[in-house]
């Protein structure tokens, strides 16, 4: 059984988590074409190697960041989202 270390709750069974995909900077929707916005919304980079991803601990609805190697499926690091998102995003 795989164990993932939640920054809030500590080590938990991987079945308690949901992966929500890569962390990407949100572009300004007012400056994009529909095609560019759809690309941001729906297309994945699908990087082979180390990626930063959004994960959620389902029992607490706690969202955080995971650094994971998509080739080996090794989880390198987990940390709270406020380590990289310091300010509220307004749009």
């Amino acid at each position: 059984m795989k164990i993932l270390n939640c920054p809030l709750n500590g080590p938990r069974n991987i079945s308690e988590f949901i992966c929500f995909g890569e962390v990407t900077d949100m572009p300004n929707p007012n400056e994009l074409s529909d095609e560019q916005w759809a690309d941001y919304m729906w297309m994945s980079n699908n990087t082979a190697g180390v990626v930063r991803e959004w994960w959620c601990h389902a029992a607490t609805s706690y969202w955080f960041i995971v650094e994971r190697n998509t080739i080996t499926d090794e989880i390198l690091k987990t940390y709270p989202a406020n380590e990289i998102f310091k300010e509220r995003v307004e749009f």
Partner: protein
Amino acid sequence: MSQTSPSHFLIRSPHYRTLLAEGANFIEHRDVVLVDNYGNSAEDEALQAQQLGLVDLTPFARSGYKGKQAIHWAKTQGLNIGASNNQAYLQSNGALVARLSDTEVLILNNIHSEQNQCILLEDEYAKNKPAQCYSVPRNNSSAWFMITGKFSTEMFAKICGIDLRLKSFPNGTIAQTSIARINGIIIRNDMNNTPAFYLIFDSASTDYMWSCLKDAFVEFQGAPVGDSALSKL
């Protein structure tokens, strides 16, 4: 033996029919109705609770607050809340405040207190409407059970992956995790010398959780106990 019928009360456990089928005798307690006993004396049920007992506390008050300023606002209301997440803090009036994260608290009223901490906070919240602090009503959305006794940790090991052994999970510790495959909150809150764990989970799964616990209890001769047993612990 009490003839009190839970169907005559607005505040009652959502699975009171199951409790009636278990032989529960109900009693009125201020504005709620709860299980007094299951046909045994309070002393006998207290002995059972010291081994392995299951108590339905769902009729009692609980509430919560969420948001960036939720902890700060709760502190301004006089609540004692420490800096550690996943830790429960006992208040002077007996209420238990569970700090679930940097942005959420859960308030569990003292089941035998005259003072309803949840209503006090709800009144203040309605008057002040604090910014970045949002009420999380839990009376109807969350069920509240208590598992008591020396076999409770071994019983939990069958349905939950967290190490709840008494030496690893001190009094006041919280685990937010999967229990019997549904999400829930476990809070250790011993009754004097008897190990006890609160279990908070989705009230729609009350009957499911009750049946899972009863099944896990069989190995240790566990049984439901009423509120009257708790005062004997």
